[in-house]
C-alpha cells in the first residue's frame, strides 16, 4: 500500500491512466484485429482489459486520501487547448482526471459491474458474427464512461458524455440489419444531443461567470453565479413602458398584442438558475427524464447485456452524477433544484404508470429504470446528493441483475422462439422457475431489492431519498437583495407522497413481471421455430381478445427452455449478493454508513443550503419509514393476488372495463406520437419550407430572376442590332433630339460646399455650368439685380442662423430656371458629437478648438468634394 502511495503521488496519479488505457486498448485491439483474433482472443482481450481496469480502480479507491476534508487523486495528461475568458484571461482546458470518493465509487461500479456484464456477454453473444465488434464497442463504452466519471473539468466530462452516447448509438443499432434498431439508435443519439445542447450552453455560462470549467474551481467560485440575468425581454426588445414611449400612436389591438409579449418589468433569474436548468437539460437527456425520456425504452432494441450495462447500470446515471458533481452550482439556485426534484418526481410516477401494463419484459425494466432514475433526481433535487448517488450505486446492482436475468430468460426463450419480439413477450413465458432456478432466484431477490423490501439495498437508498424529500428544504443563498425564488414548504411533502405512490407501482409491476415470467404454466409451448401465429401477428397495441388460448399448455415439438451457462449465471449471483447487502454501506437510520462517511466531504456545501423543514421533523424519521414499507407490501401483495392467485384475470377485467385507459397506458400515454406530431413535425415542416424556399425563392430570385432579367435585356437590345442603316439613323435622330431638348432647357443645379460651415460659417455654392448660362443669386447678402457670369457665391452664416439662397439661371435661349437652398449653421451651444475631438493616446488636441488653415493639413482631403 505504502509502496503504491509512493509510486503514485496524489497530484500525478498515473494509475488513472491505467484505468483508462486498458479498456481503450481493448476497444482498439478488438475493433481492428478482432476478426483475426477469433472469439477466444476477443474474449480474453475484453475481459482482461476490464478486469485489469477494475483492479486499478480498486487500488485507486483504496489509495484515496482519507480524513476530514476528503481529498482527491489527480492526473493531468496534456494541455488540450485553452480559451480566453471574459477578462481576456487564459483558461486552460487540460485533459485531466481527478478522482474523489464519489468518482472512485462510480469507477468501481463501472469497471466491476462492467466486468460482470462483459463476462456474461462473452457467453450471451457467442453465436453472433459481430462478436469482436460487440466487445470493441463495449470496451470503448467503458473507456468513455470512465472518462466521464473521472473528468476533472466539464470539457473532459463532455468527451465522456458524448462518448457514451456514441457507444450507446452503436450498440443500440448493433443489429443494424433491422431498420427498427438503427432508428432506435438514431433516436437515442439525437435526443441525447438535445441534452448536449443544454450542456454546451451551461458550459458557456459557467465560463462567463466563473471563468473556469474545472469542477473544483466551479464549486469554489459558484457564488459568482448569483448574478441576476434578465432573460426576457432579450436582445433589443423593449419593456412594455419603453415600447409605449416609442410608439405613442400605436393602435389598440396592436398594442394589446405587443403587451402580451413584453413584460412591465424584466424577468430576472440568477445565472446559477440558467446554468442549473441548462445542465439539467443535459442530465435529462442522458438520464431519460421528462421531457427527454423517450429514447430509453426504444434503446432496448440493443442486445440485452447492453441494456444492463449502458441503459440501466452506468450511462443513464451520468445525469445524476453530473448534478451531484456540480452540486455547488445547483445549491446556488433553489429554483433549479426544485425543477430537478419536481421533474424527477414526475418522471418517477409517470414511467412507473407506463410500466404497469407492458408485455415486453425489457420494456417493463426500461420504464422501471426511467422511474428509478426519477427517484435519483428527487434525491439530488432535494439536496440529498449522497442519497441520490447512493441510489445510483444500489440501482446499478439490482437493475443490472434484473436485466441480465431478463437476458438469461430471453436467451432461454430464444432457443424456442427465434423472434426478438416474441421471445421477450411475457405472455409467452410463465413457469420458467422450474427450467432456470438460478435465474429465477436472482431475479426474485432483485425484485425485492427494487421494490424496497427491507433490508435489501433498494430499501435503504429509496427510503433515504424519500425521507430527505420529506424532511428538508433548500434555502436560497444569502444575497444582498431579495431571493428571486424561495422553496415552498409543502413541496418536499408532496414529492414524498408522490414518491410513495410510485414506489407502490414499482413493487406492483416488478412482481407482475416476476410472476408472469416464472410462475404459472409455460405458455411458450405452442411457439416453435418458424411458427406463425394465425390471424393476428404480434401487435404492439395488445388488443388481442383471443389471448386466452395461449395457456393450453400442450407442448409442441421444439427445444425446452434451459438454464444459462455458468458464465451467465455467475454474474447474476454476484449481483444478487450485492443487491442484498449493498444497502448496508449507507443505512443511515441504523447508523451503518461507511460509504456515507467517505462521500460526505464531497458534498460539504450542501450542509448550509439544505435545512430541516421545521422543528421536530427529525423525530419523524422512523414513522415516515412506514409508508415506504407499506408501499412495498401493497404493491407486492396486489401483484401476488392478481397474477399468482388469480392468474391475471383482474388485469383482463380492467382492460375490459376501461379499454381506452388501458390502451393509453399501454401506448405509453402516446407521448411519442405527441412528440412526433409536435416537435418532429414542426422541425420537419420547417425544413420542408426552407428547402422549398431555397430552391424557388433564394435560388429563384438570385439566380433565375437575375438571369431572366439579363436575358430580357439581351432580347430587347438584340432587336436594335438589325444591321439596317435606316434603323440606326432613326435611333441617332431620336437621340440627338433628346440631347437637343436637354440643352435647350436651363438647369439650375449647384454644388454646396459647406465643409467650413460649422467652423467659419462660410459656404461656397457653385452653380453647374451650361451653354450660355448666366446666373443671378438672391439672399446672399449682396443683392444682385442682373444675371451675370459669376458661377460661385460665398456666403457667411452666423451661428444659429438660417439663410435662404435662391439661384436663377438663364441660358442662351433666354429661358430661366430657379433653385433654392436653405443653409443652416448649428448654434454654438450644441456641438454635434461628430465634432468632438476623439480621445486618442498620443494625440495633442489643440486648445481652444480654433481652426487651422486648410493648407496646413496635408493629410486631409475631401474626397466627395473632388467628385
Amino acid at each position, binding site marked *: 500500500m505504502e509502496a503504491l502511495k509512493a509510486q503514485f503521488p496524489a497530484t500525478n496519479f498515473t494509475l488513472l491512466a491505467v484505468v483508462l488505457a486498458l479498456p481503450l486498448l481493448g476497444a482498439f485491439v478488438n475493433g481492428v484485429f478482432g476478426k483475426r483474433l477469433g472469439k477466444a482472443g476477443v474474449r480474453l482481450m475484453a475481459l482482461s482489459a476490464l478486469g485489469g481496469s477494475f483492479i486499478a480502480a480498486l487500488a485507486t479507491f483504496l489509495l484515496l486520501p482519507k480524513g476530514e476534508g476528503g481529498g482527491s487523486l489527480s492526473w493531468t495528461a496534456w494541455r488540450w487547448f485553452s480559451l480566453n475568458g471574459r477578462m481576456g484571461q487564459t483558461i486552460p482546458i487540460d485533459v485531466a482526471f481527478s478522482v474523489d470518493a464519489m468518482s472512485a465509487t462510480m469507477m468501481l461500479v463501472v469497471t466491476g459491474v462492467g466486468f460482470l456484464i462483459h463476462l456474461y456477454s462473452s457467453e450471451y453473444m457467442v453465436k453472433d458474427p459481430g462478436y469482436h465488434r460487440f466487445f470493441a464497442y463495449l470496451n470503448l463504452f467503458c473507456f468513455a464512461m470512465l472518462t466521464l466519471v473521472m473528468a476533472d473539468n466539464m470539457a473532459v466530462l463532455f468527451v465522456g458524455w458524448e462518448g457514451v452516447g456514441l457507444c450507446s448509438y452503436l450498440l443500440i443499432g448493433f443489429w443494424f440489419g*433491422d431498420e427498427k434498431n438503427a432508428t432506435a439508435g438514431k433516436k437515442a443519439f439525437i435526443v441525447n444531443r438535445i441534452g448536449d445542447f443544454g450542456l*454546451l450552453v451551461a458550459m458557456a455560462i459557467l465560463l462567463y461567470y466563473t471563468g473556469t470549467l474545472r469542477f473544483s474551481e466551479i464549486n469554489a467560485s459558484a457564488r459568482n453565479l448569483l448574478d441576476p440575468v434578465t432573460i426576457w425581454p432579450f436582445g433589443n426588445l423593449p419593456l412594455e413602458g419603453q415600447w409605449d414611449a416609442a410608439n405613442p400612436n400605436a393602435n389598440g389591438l396592436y398594442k394589446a398584442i405587443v403587451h402580451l409579449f413584453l413584460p412591465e418589468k424584466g424577468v430576472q433569474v440568477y445565472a446559477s438558475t440558467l446554468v442549473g436548468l441548462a445542465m439539467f437539460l443535459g442530465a435529462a437527456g442522458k438520464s431519460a427524464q421528462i421531457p427527454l425520456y423517450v429514447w430509453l425504452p426504444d434503446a432496448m432494441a440493443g442486445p440485452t447485456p447492453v441494456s444492463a450495462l449502458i441503459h440501466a447500470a452506468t450511462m443513464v446515471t451520468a445525469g445524476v452524477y453530473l448534478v451531484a458533481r456540480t452540486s455547488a452550482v445547483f445549491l446556488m439556485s433553489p429554483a433549479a433544484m426544485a425543477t430537478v426534484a419536481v421533474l424527477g418526481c414526475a418522471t418517477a410516477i409517470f414511467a412507473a404508470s407506463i410500466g404497469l401494463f407492458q408485455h415486453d419484459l425489457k420494456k417493463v425494466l426500461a420504464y422501471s429504470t426511467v422511474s428509478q432514475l426519477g427517484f435519483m433526481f428527487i434525491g439530488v433535487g432535494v439536496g440529498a446528493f449522497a442519497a441520490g448517488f447512493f441510489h445510483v450505486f444500489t440501482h446499478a446492482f439490482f437493475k443490472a441483475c434484473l436485466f441480465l436475468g431478463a437476458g438469461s430468460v430471453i436467451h432461454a426463450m430464444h432457443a424456442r422462439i427465434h423472434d426478438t419480439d416474441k421471445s421477450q413477450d411475457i405472455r409467452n413465458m410463465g413457469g420458467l422457475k422450474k427450467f432456470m432456478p438460478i435465474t429465477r432466484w436472482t431475479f426474485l431477490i432483485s425484485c425485492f431489492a427494487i421494490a424496497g423490501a427491507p433490508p435489501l439495498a433498494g430499501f435503504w437508498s429509496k427510503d433515504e431519498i424519500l425521507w430527505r424529500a420529506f424532511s428538508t428544504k433548500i434555502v436560497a443563498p444569502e444575497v444582498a437583495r431579495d431571493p428571486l425564488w424561495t422553496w415552498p414548504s409543502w413541496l418536499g411533502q408532496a414529492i414524498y407522497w408522490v414518491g410513495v405512490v410510485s414506489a407502490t407501482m414499482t413493487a406492483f409491476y416488478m412482481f407482475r413481471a416476476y410472476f408472469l415470467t416464472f410462475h404459472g404454466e409455460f405458455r411458450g409451448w405452442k411457439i416453435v421455430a418458424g411458427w406463425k401465429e394465425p390471424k393476428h401477428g404480434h401487435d404492439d397495441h395488445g388488443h388481442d381478445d383471443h389471448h386466452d388460448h395461449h395457456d393450453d399448455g400442450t407442448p409442441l415439438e421444439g427445444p425446452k427452455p434451459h438454464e444459462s451457462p455458468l458464465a451467465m449465471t455467475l454474474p447474476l449471483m454476484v449481483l444478487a449478493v450485492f443487491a442484498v447487502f449493498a444497502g448496508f454501506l449507507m443505512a443511515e437510520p441504523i447508523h451503518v454508513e461507511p460509504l456515507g462517511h467517505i462521500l460526505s466531504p464531497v458534498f460539504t456545501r450542501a450542509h448550509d443550503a439544505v435545512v430541516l423543514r421545521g422543528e421536530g421533523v427529525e423525530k419523524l424519521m422512523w414513522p415516515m419509514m412506514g409508508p415506504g414499507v407499506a408501499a412495498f407490501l401493497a404493491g407486492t401483495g396486489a401483484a401476488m393476488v392478481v397474477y399468482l392467485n388469480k392468474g391475471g384475470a383482474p388485469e383482463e377485467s380492467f382492460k375490459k372495463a376501461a379499454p381506452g385507459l388501458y390502451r393509453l397506458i399501454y401506448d405509453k400515454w402516446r407521448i411519442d406520437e405527441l412528440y412526433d406530431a409536435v416537435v418532429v413535425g414542426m422541425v420537419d415542416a420547417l425544413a420542408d419550407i426552407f428547402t422549398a424556399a*431555397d430552391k424557388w425563392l433564394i435560388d429563384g430570385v438570385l439566380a433565375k430572376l437575375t438571369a431572366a432579367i439579363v436575358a430580357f435585356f439581351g432580347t430587347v437590345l438584340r432587336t436594335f442590332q438589325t444591321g439596317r442603316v435606316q434603323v440606326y439613323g432613326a435611333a441617332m435622330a431620336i437621340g440627338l433630339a433628346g440631347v437637343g431638348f436637354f440643352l435647350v432647357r436651363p438647369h439650375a443645379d449647384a454644388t454646396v460646399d459647406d465643409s467650413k460651415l460649422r467652423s467659419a460659417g462660410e459656404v461656397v455654392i457653385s452653380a453647374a455650368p451650361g451653354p450660355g448660362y448666366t446666373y443671378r443669386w438672391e439672399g446672399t447678402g449682396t443683392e444682385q439685380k442682373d444675371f451675370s457670369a459669376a458661377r460661385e457665391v460665398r456666403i457667411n452664416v452666423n451661428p444659429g442662423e438660417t439663410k435662404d439662397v435662391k439661384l436663377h439661371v438663364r441660358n442662351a435661349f433666354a429661358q430661366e430656371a430657379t433653385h433654392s437652398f436653405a443653409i443652416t449653421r448649428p448654434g454654438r451651444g450644441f456641438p454635434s458629437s461628430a465634432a468632438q475631438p*476623439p480621445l486618442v493616446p498620443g494625440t495633442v488636441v489643440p486648445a481652444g478648438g480654433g481652426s487651422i488653415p486648410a493648407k*496646413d493639413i496635408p493629410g486631409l482631403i475631401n474626397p466627395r468634394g473632388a467628385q
Partner: protein
Amino acid sequence: MSPLDLVFQYWPAIGAGILGALVPRGEASTKQRAGLGFIAALTTLFVIWLWPTEGAAQAAQAPNEWPHLLNLLIALPIVGAAAVLFIPRQMLSTLRGFTYVVLGIGFVASLWLLTVPMTAGWHFQYIKDWMPSLGIRYHVAIDGISLWLVLLTTFVTPIAAYASFGSIKTRIKEFCFALLLLQGGMIGAFLALDLFLFYVFWELMLVPMFLMIGIWGGADRVKAAIKFFLYTMAGSVLMLAAIIYLVWTHQKLTGDFSFDYLALSRVVLPKSAQLICFWAFSLAFFIKVPMWPVHTWLPDAHVQAPTGGSVILAAVMLKLGTYAYMRFSMGLFPGPASNLSANLAGVAILGGILYGALVAWKQRDVKRLVAYSSVAHLGFVMLGLFSATPSGMQGAVLQMVNHGVSTGALFLLVGVIYDRRHTREVDEFGGLAKVMPLYAVVFLIVTFASVGVPGTNGFVGEFLVIMGTFLSERLGKFAGIHTVGAAAGVILAAVYMLYVVQKMFFGPLTNPKNKHLSDLTVRESLALAPLVLMIFVIGFFPSIFLDRMKESVLLQHNQFKVVSGQAILFADDRDAKLLPEDTFSPVFLKGMPKKEKTEEPAPGADTQAALGGEGKVAQ
C-alpha cells in the same frame, strides 16, 4: 546520433507505422500495408515534432526564415502547371508522376513553415516592386492564421489529386494543369498582402476550378460551372471597385499610390463609403464562404464537380472566403465589421447553422447534403469571426481546417460510392455496412467528426466558437441568444448526418445492385487514411495547432478591437482619414511601403491632423 537512438527517440512513430501496416486484413497488397504504415508513422512524427515543449521557444531563438520559401510555394505549382503543357499527353504516368512530385515538394516545403515559432506579425515576408508607378508590389507573408490554411492546401491537394487519378480517365494533361494552377492560385491568395496581388490570385484560382467543373463534371456541369463563375465574379468585381476606391483615397491622403494591405489598413473612409466598401468586400467573401442567401451556387457546383474538384472546393476554396473576411474585411473596415457583427452573426446562425442544417436534412443527393452541411459548418466559422473574441477567432480558424479535413473526407467517401454505383441518391442505398464494412466504418468516423463529437476535430472548433460567442462583447445583448442558436446547431448536425448514415448503411440490404459492391480499394483507403488520422490528431491535440495561431489571432483581435473603436469614433460623413501608425502594432506594419517624398511635414503632423478636432478636419 546512432540509428538505435533514433529508434528510441521515435518509438511511437515506429510503433504507429507497424500498427498501421498491420491494420489491413487478409491478402492486402504490400502497397496498402506500406502506405498505411507510412502514413501512420508520419502522422505520429508530426505530432511528436510539434508537441509543445518547454525548450522549444528557446531552441528556435534565431528564426532562420528563408525569404524565398513563400515564392517557392506559390511559384512551384504555377511553373509546374506551365511545365505540364510541355509533356506529351500520351505519357499518362509521367503526367501523374510529375504532378505528384510538384505537389509533394510543395507539401514538404510547406512543412518548413512550421519550424519557425509563429510569433505575432509577418513571417517569411518577401516584397518586390511590381508596378511601382501604381504602388503595386509583390508582397507575400505568412502569419499564424494563413499558416494553417496554406498547410491545409498543400495537404489536401495531393490527396485530391491521388483520389482523382483513380476516377478521372480523360484529359489527364489538362487536369494536371488545372490542378497545379489551382494550387498556385489558392496558396497565392492566402499569402498575398497586396490587394492587387490578392485580387490576381483570387481570380486566377477561379479559372481552373471553372474548368474542373465544366470539363470533368456531371451531366449538368456547364450550367453549374457558369453559375459558380458568375456568382464568384459578381462579388469579385465589387471588391475590385472597392479596392480601387480605397487605393485612390489612400493616394489622396498620402500622395502615394499603394495597394498594400498594411498601408491601406490605416485609411478610415467616410462613414457611408466605409459601409459600401465593407459590403463590396464582404459580399465577395460571403459568396465564396458561402453565407446565406448567396449560397445556392455551392450545392450545384458540388453536385456537378468531380470528386477531386469537390474536395478542393470544399476543403480550401471556401476557406478563402472566411480567411479573406477575417484578413481584409475585418482589417480594412473594422468599423462596419464591428457595428454589423451582431446582425451578421444572426445571419450566420439562422441562415447558416440552422437553415443550412435543415435544408441539408431534406436533400436526397448525398453530395448536395454534404454541400449544405458545409453551409452550416461555415456558419460556425463566420460566427466565430463575428464574435471577434480570441476564442471565437481561434475556433473559427481551427474550424476552417477541420471543415477542410472532414468535409474533404466526406466528399472523397461520396466519390467512392459514386464510382461504384453512378448515383448518389440515398434511397438507392441501404444496408451497405454489410457489403462494405470498412467503408462504413470510415464514413461513420468522418460523420462523427462532422457532427462534432468530442475526440474528433469538429468538437474543438465548435466548442471554441460557441464559448467565444457567449463571451463576446461585440455581440452585446445578443450573445446569449446567439449562443443558444449556435448550440442548437449541434442537434441538427446529428439529425442530418445520422439520417444519411442510417439510410445508406443500416437497415436491410434490399437493392440487388448493392449486393456485390467492393469495399474500399487500396487507392481509396490510402487517400482517406491521412484525413481520418488528422481528424483524431486535431481532436486530441488541438493545441499544437492553436498554439501556433494564438499570437497572430490575438494580434488581429486586439487590432480589430482598437482600430474598430477608433474607426467608429473618427469616421465622419465626409472625410477620409489616416490613422496614426502607432495605432497599429509595429510587427503588423512591418513591410509597409515607406514614403520617399519629403514634402510632408515632420512625422507626427499627419497624425495630429488626422486625429485633431473638427476644426482641423474640415477642409
